[in-house]
Structures are given as structure tokens and as C-alpha cells.
């Protein structure tokens, strides 16, 4: 007997970001396929995640700067345990730590058919994965 559920897309079951006024611009830019970090208009420091004041000079005069999306693989880990049910189907999945050309460090996922070739120090570049109507996640592939 045909089932109605076979035609229903399963809802996205992984944790979603919880944007705040401070972080909303990051997610808005990601949705447009652009990766951004916070930059201080006063001293030029670039940082991520967002901070209410510049951690270098304490200025509140900050903006979001779109970055190249290029970086270096600092390290990575392969999860064999799912802390959320939504990740079970992906096991094992790779989380990477990337240092952007512009300086800041961020965790993301290392994806792509050759992700298993990842080595510390290898160049990576950003890709964007639209996971819901409102959320796009920046991820990385080997460059």
C-alpha cells in the first residue's frame, strides 16, 4: 500500500543556529553565499565569533567583512558518535578547524569526495550548503 510519507521530505533534524542581533549579519551573508568575520573599524582586528566589543581595543565600532573563504586546515576530527539523532545517518562525519587567510579560526565540516585526503596544513576553501529556507551553513572542501 502506498504511503503518504514517502512523498514528504523529512524535516531537517540537526541543530540550527540561534541568531542574535550580534550574529544575524553572519547568517544573512551566509545565505547569500558569502563568509564574513567581524572586523574592528578602530584597530582593524578581525575576529570570530562575534564579540560585543573588539577584543583587541574594546571599541564598539565594528562591522562584518566578507572574507576570501580560503584558509588552512588546522586539524580535524571524525565523529563516530552522534550527540544529536540528526547526525546519526552521517556517521562518521568530519568536523574541521580552519584558519582563514584573514586570521580567525572556526570549526566547520570538511566535505567533498576527497575529504578523507585531509591533512594538517592543507589549503581549504568555503562552500555553502543550504540546509533550510533560512539557514545556509558555510562548510569547507580541500582546495
Amino acid at each position, binding site marked *: 500500500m502506498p504511503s503518504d510519507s514517502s512523498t514528504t521530505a523529512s524535516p531537517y533534524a*540537526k*541543530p*540550527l*543556529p540561534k541568531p542574535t542581533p550580534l*550574529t544575524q549579519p553572519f547568517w544573512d551573508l551566509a545565505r547569500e553565499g558569502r563568509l564574513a568575520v567581524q572586523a574592528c573599524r578602530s584597530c582593524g582586528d578581525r575576529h*570570530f*565569533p562575534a564579540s560585543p566589543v573588539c*577584543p583587541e581595543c574594546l571599541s564598539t565600532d565594528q562591522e562584518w567583512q566578507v572574507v576570501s573563504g580560503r584558509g588552512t586546515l*588546522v*586539524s*580535524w*576530527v*571524525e*565523529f*563516530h*558518535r*552522534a*550527540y*544529536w539523532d540528526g*547526525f546519526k545517518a*552521517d556517521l*562518521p*562525519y568530519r*568536523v574541521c*578547524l580552519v584558519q582563514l587567510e584573514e586570521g580567525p*579560526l572556526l*570549526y*566547520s*565540516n570538511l566535505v567533498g569526495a576527497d575529504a578523507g585526503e585531509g*591533512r*594538517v*596544513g592543507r589549503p581549504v576553501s568555503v562552500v555553502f550548503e543550504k*540546509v533550510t529556507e533560512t*539557514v545556509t*551553513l558555510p*562548510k569547507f572542501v580541500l582546495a
Partner: protein
Amino acid sequence: MMSDFQDLKNMVAVVGVGTTRYGSFPETDEYGLGAEAFGKAIADCGLDKSQIDGLLVNRIPSYARMGEVLGIDPRWTITLPAHGRMSGMAIIEATAALATGRAKYAALIYANIGRSRRVNYGGDESPNIWDPWGMTSPGAAHAMMFQRHMAMYGTTTRQLAEVSVAIRHNAGLNPDAVMRKPITIDDHEEARRIAAPLGLLDYCLITDGAVCLILTTAERARDLKKPPVLVSGVGGRDRFRQSALGTFDLDFWHGPIRESGEESYRMAGVARDDVDVLMSYDNFSPTVLFSLEGLGFCPRGESGRFVEGGTLKVGGRLPTNTDGGHLSNSYMQGWALNVEAVRQVRGECGDRQVPGCEVAQYIAATVCTRSIIYTRG
């Protein structure tokens, strides 16, 4: 007028220690466990509870409830959150408080009911900004660091296994340890991966239990039941600038460990080679390697080779975590390691006793790194 913390050398002593059994105790809670450890600790030093006028609680939800349960009204109270880094910090802060007369006898109580409550240290229990990418748990952050250590220095998981194997060996000599069955390097390699390159045998246990230490001034300590163990040197460095990455450090906290260690050796007036037994915070096995390098027991990048051949076993070149540590004894977040340091210096450790132990070091390599040197009073 005191000018330097270094002047507190040997001014404060640990005079009483108490530990509960470790395991799963759903029938009780933090207060029941904390009270049991407290009762054992005051019996250990021969004090009456009415003499306790300082109370520090860690991972216990309410300091007021703890005081109520123990029936004490101290004049100095502090509560610290449930992070492993807090144990060393607690002992150092209590040392300062006692040396400056804030209290005469302080009880430091830690309790953990995480086993019964099925705490799993990741996921929605500890939300963070990386959840959408599935990055969660301190174990994964340590796996990231070890992956990097392997790439930079050629360290292998078989070398990492030496940490878990040696500490399990030590646990086998401790009748109170939870995991006592010997393991081999192959067992370590074949164990279920959790956050590769780390597997099950690289992870600490999760156990219920409690620990209590009673501290007082060295002067008052002379009148108590057991020989005092002096807090001879302490050191610490914090590194908050990349806290968003969790318990991760690009440089394996090498600088903070080195500086904390040197500060504590200098204050105690001992050299690294004087350390008879090392208590190295082992939330995950790589932390021990980073600690050995930071303290300078081996050159940078050579900890893998250093631990080969049973270096860390009782009877080895540098007996480490002689009670079985977090990997095999209990998950008391540094507290049980400090008790073990005291028991080693007292010579109370039975089969796992390091002969002639006079100097014990505690090191916790983390976001708030702390080193403590204990010596015989």
C-alpha cells in the same frame, strides 16, 4: 606586609582527606556524597566539624544546602562551577584564604552525580555556536589537538596508548579504582572510536562520587592526627582568547603549562627532577602528553617516545596518576588526584606507593592551567 604569593610557601597544609566509593549511586545526590567525603576527611585529621569555619564547594549545586546538611556555619564560603580546571584553582584560593586568616580550617568538597544522571558532556546538554556543524564535547576538541600533534611530531596512537595502559596498570594496584582489568596497546587500538583519532580508552570515566580535603595553616597542622602535607608551591596561567573553540589550544597550552610549572617549582624550591610522583589531569589521554612536554619532562614533540615502555607506571621512570586517574580510577575532576598526591607523600598508598615519596606534583593542562607542589611537612 606580604609582597608576593611566593611568600605563602609551606604556610598551608592538607591535613585531612576523604573519598567516597566511586560508581553509580542513584539512591543519593551531591549532598549525600559530599557529606560522606566530609565525614571521612574530618575523621582523617581528628577535627570536630564545629571547628570547620571555611567551606568551598565545587560541582555541588547549593553551598547553603551543603552547609545545612553538614550543620556548619562557616565565615568563609566559596562555590565554583563544574569544570575540572576548578580543583587546582580551589586549592590555591583556599591556600590564600587560610594564609591570610580568612578561616582557620577549610573544608573543600567536590561531588559528582553525573553517572546516575547520565551526563554525556555534549549535544544539547552543553549548547555552543558550533552545534550546527556537529562540533560538540571536550573529547572532540582534544581529538583535534592530538590529530595536530600527530601531524606536527609524528606521534602515534600506539604511543598515546601507553598513557592509558600505564594508568590502567596503576589502577590495578588501587583497590578503590573503578576500572582495574589490565589493558594492552592493542586493546587501545581496537577500542570503539568516539571522536577519531580518540577512542573509548582515551576517555575519562564518568562516575558518581565525592572528595573532601581539609586545609589549615602549617602551624595548626602540627596538632592534628596525620603528618601534614604542605602546599609548597603553586602556579597558574589562564588562556581565554580562543575560548570559543572550547578546550582546544593551538599550542597544546605549552606556554601556560611551562610557566605554571616553573612558578610552582620556584616557589617550592624544588627542581622538576625532584618530583617523585606526578598527578596529571587526564580527562583525555593526550592531556598527559601535553603536560609532560609543557613541564619539560621531555622536549617538545617527544612525549610519545617518552611514555613508551611503561614510563608512567608505578615502578616506572615517572610514576603518574598512581590511583588510576580519570581514565581508570574515577571522574573526580582533579580532586582525587590531589588526594592521591597527599596520600603518596604520607606514604599511605599500599601496593601503589612510590617508595620515599617526598615531592608530588599536580598539573591540570587546560584553559586555566594550574600546578601544585606538595611536600612532606
